[in-house]
């Protein structure tokens, strides 16, 4: 428990826009995620949440500041990281099974073993009967579950999830949330407990799942406030929602977030005018 799983110190990311100007997406961001911790990140749209995750994953380098994973500065992509993208990113030319096998195969696992592991995960996300389908033959929610299986099959110690359930209907969403908690709890018994950074727009989801909820400011993103969710585990999404402490937390976080959302909206309106 000594070295944190993820450590961002003074991380700043600027992008060059097509017009040549610099656009700051993330500014001077400090965030620490302990090993085995589940952190939810909420913030107004476009503030820089996805960008923060790409910094942790190693897909992008910070312009300034430092990103560390298990104490090591991030250089390139760390094989311990799993990333469920906001956009659809399953391979359309591969079948469902082949999509889930992709990770282990890329990492040099023999085909037979990769297939076995992929089948196991397809079973867990409830898609065992669909392994021969192509992604275009699935519903949006099913594709998302393929993406989850595709990520989990690699046993990531660090799990970055960018609005993974936003494409799902309410029922499937609750089901998947509970399943995610179960999977995560399953890893926490081992010595290398999985750490999760979970971006969402759904406060209910954030509070129900996380140990801590990070509220980001209007863009460029930096940490505004961190709330510790002191609700007992194991939780189920449906039950925890009814606890008085949940409601209290919801109100506090909503107030904090609402202010940033308002700023973002006013800015958008100002630019449009």
């Amino acid at each position, binding site marked *: 428990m000594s070295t944190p799983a993820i450590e961002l110190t003074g991380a700043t990311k600027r992008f060059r826009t097509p017009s040549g100007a610099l656009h700051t997406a993330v500014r001077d961001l400090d965030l620490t995620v302990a090993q085995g911790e589940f952190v939810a990140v909420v913030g107004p749209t476009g503030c820089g949440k996805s960008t923060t995750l790409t910094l942790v994953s190693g897909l992008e380098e910070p312009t300034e500041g430092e990103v560390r994973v298990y104490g090591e500065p991030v250089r390139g992509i760390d*094989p311990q990281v799993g*990333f469920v993208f906001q956009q659809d*990113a399953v*391979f359309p*030319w591969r*079948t469902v099974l082949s999509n889930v096998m992709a*990770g282990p195969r*890329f990492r040099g696992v023999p085909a037979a073993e990769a297939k076995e592991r992929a089948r196991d995960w397809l079973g867990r996300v409830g898609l065992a009967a669909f392994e021969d389908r192509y992604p275009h033959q699935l519903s949006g929610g099913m594709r998302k579950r393929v993406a989850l299986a595709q990520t989990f099959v690699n046993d990531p110690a660090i799990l970055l999830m960018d609005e993974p359930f936003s494409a799902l209907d309410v029922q499937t969403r609750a089901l998947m949330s509970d399943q995610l908690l179960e999977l995560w709890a399953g890893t926490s018994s081992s010595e290398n407990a999985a750490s999760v950074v979970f971006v969402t727009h759904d406060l209910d989801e954030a509070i129900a799942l996380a140990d801590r909820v990070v509220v980001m400011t209007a863009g460029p993103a930096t940490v505004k406030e961190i709330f510790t969710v002191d609700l007992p585990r194991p939780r189920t999404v449906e039950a925890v929602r009814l606890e008085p402490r949940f409601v209290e937390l919801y109100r506090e976080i909503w107030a904090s977030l609402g202010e940033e959302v308002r700023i973002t909206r006013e800015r958008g309106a100002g630019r449009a005018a």
Partner: protein
Amino acid sequence: MPLETASETAASETAATAAGKPPAAGTRTEARERAARNRKLTVYAARVGVLVAFLGLWEVGARTEVVDPFNFSQPSRIWDQIWQWVTHGTAQGSLGEQIGYTLYEALSGWVIGVVCGVLLGIALGRIRFLAEVFGPYIKVLNAIPRIVLAPIFLIWFGLGPASKVASAVVLVFFPVFFNAFQGAREVDRNLVANARILGADNRRVTLQVVIPAATTWIFTSLHVSFGFALIGAIVGEYIGATKGLGLLVAAAQGTFNAAGVYAAMTILAVVALVTEGLLTLAEKKLFRWKPADAGDGR
């Protein structure tokens, strides 16, 4: 035409409902199927009709000397010419041999052009440095009207198939190259990011993400480019050769045999259509992962 039919069916359906007698689901689908079948038959019949009318007018026009049969020939003579080639062979040897020669040249040129185009297109699409260095040269080469290279190739490579293959290659290469390049450029960044996170190295990203993603682009160019390969081979043969359909055209023209020119053209068209069909078949197999209507759209 399809629009009209759609609105007609819709109109008749609303009429049926308005009459207060909603047709049973079973009969309605049946009726719809029957209508679709009839429509298909009508289309085919109309197509044949157009062809028959065209050939008939031509034939009658030629016989009554409204069109000059010496310059424009006539369908019956063209058919006789084809039949004569089929049964007695051409002056250069059997008809099959001529077709074989042309196909061989076109196919070799096509394969070489496609392979080079795809490899270079993907390489330049993936490696920015290469694109920046070679980009201007490729643009310049592309600006040359490549068909004028055919006589030069004849000088370089002689009367044999090599000069025709070369003409086909230069015609095929550029469209395939540009499509492969574009395809490699426009790969969904999310897919590449996902593959890298899942553990793919650069080689695997190219082989297992960029190439499959670019195949749609590449295949669009394959259809067009096979036509170009045939053109390259034919023009090459026309300018100078010992065998092939292009030579047949040239020889017929040399003896003022208009029927011969048209007959060779007809044979060419059939050959092109058959190969096009085979290509479509291969494409259907390769693109099983695509939604059906998107694939049929082209």
